[in-house]
């Protein structure tokens, strides 16, 4: 009887330790950011937008083969997107739609689509195929950004229409 109690205690103790380790590990991995997933994902997506703007500027300047670095940044950032949308992370500062968590597999697929489209763009740039880069860029906004933003993000306030020239 005594022995069995001791044995049970040992098993319980090690399991508790295992649990603690498991939880600690996952917390550590998630704490790579600031701990505020809304701020973290907005920072990440801002850099996605800035890299996309840089891609467009380079294509416009006639240097499509130099976009590889930006496309690779998009591809690597895309992998982090689903992890930055834990369920329940919808605050008044967030532009995320609740549809993200209702249609999680579609949201995940949309992030994967960005990753793949960006990787293709990177490969075209690395191959110095300027024409392919330009073609990809022409539909990228709609097909890589829009396919996720349209269903899953509250649209930003409409921009003021340009003032007619007097």
């Amino acid at each position: 009887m005594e022995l069995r109690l001791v044995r049970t205690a040992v098993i319980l103790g090690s399991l508790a330790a295992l649990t603690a380790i498991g939880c600690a590990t996952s917390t550590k991995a998630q704490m790579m950011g600031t701990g505020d997933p809304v701020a973290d994902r907005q920072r990440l997506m801002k850099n996605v937008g800035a890299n996309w703007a840089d891609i467009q500027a380079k294509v416009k300047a006639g240097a499509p083969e130099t976009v590889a670095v930006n496309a690779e940044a998009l591809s690597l950032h895309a992998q982090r997107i689903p992890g930055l949308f834990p369920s329940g992370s919808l605050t008044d500062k967030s532009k995320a739609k609740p549809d993200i968590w209702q249609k999680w597999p579609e949201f995940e697929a949309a992030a994967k689509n960005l990753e793949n489209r960006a990787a293709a763009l990177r490969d075209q740039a690395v191959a110095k195929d300027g024409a392919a880069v330009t073609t990809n860029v022409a539909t990228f906004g709609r097909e890589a950004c829009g396919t996720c933003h349209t269903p899953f993000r509250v649209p930003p306030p409409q921009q003021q229409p340009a003032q007619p020239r007097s």
Partner: protein
Amino acid sequence: MNRRRAKTTIVLAGLVALSIAGTATAQSTAKLWSSDVVADRQRLMKLNGASWADAQAKLKAGNAEAVAVNAETMALIATQILPLFPEGSLTDKSKAKPEIWQKWSEFEAATKNYAMQADKLRDAARTKDLAATEAVAKEFGRQACGSCHTPFRVPPPQQQAPAPPQQQPTR
């Protein structure tokens, strides 16, 4: 007695489930990348190098503001470095030195320093001040990259020394 045994079983089962859940969560986060951690960190560091090269090219062209995106990319990537160096991930393809794991806290501090330096470069670029951005960039290679690569990375093979200048034929 039977009751107590049942209770113990339930507690045990619960703890087993919790352990699995905890471990699974950890794994799903680590699963962000491929299963080859050396390839993953080499891919990440290559993007760091390419972002730095792009920043330097823009500075050379006099475009300080455009450096901000590269610096912010580096700052974001810096937070990804540590988990890509799990203990025992030293293969013959890796240029990592074992010192990383012997002096983990120093390695950790080096990645934090890298993130801070990238923040500094980004903030300078956002002011659009070319001279200020160049001043940060001038120190960046040594202070942000070198302070980690020197103690913790096997140096890449020395580049061919430039050929000595051809003797000018005397006329």
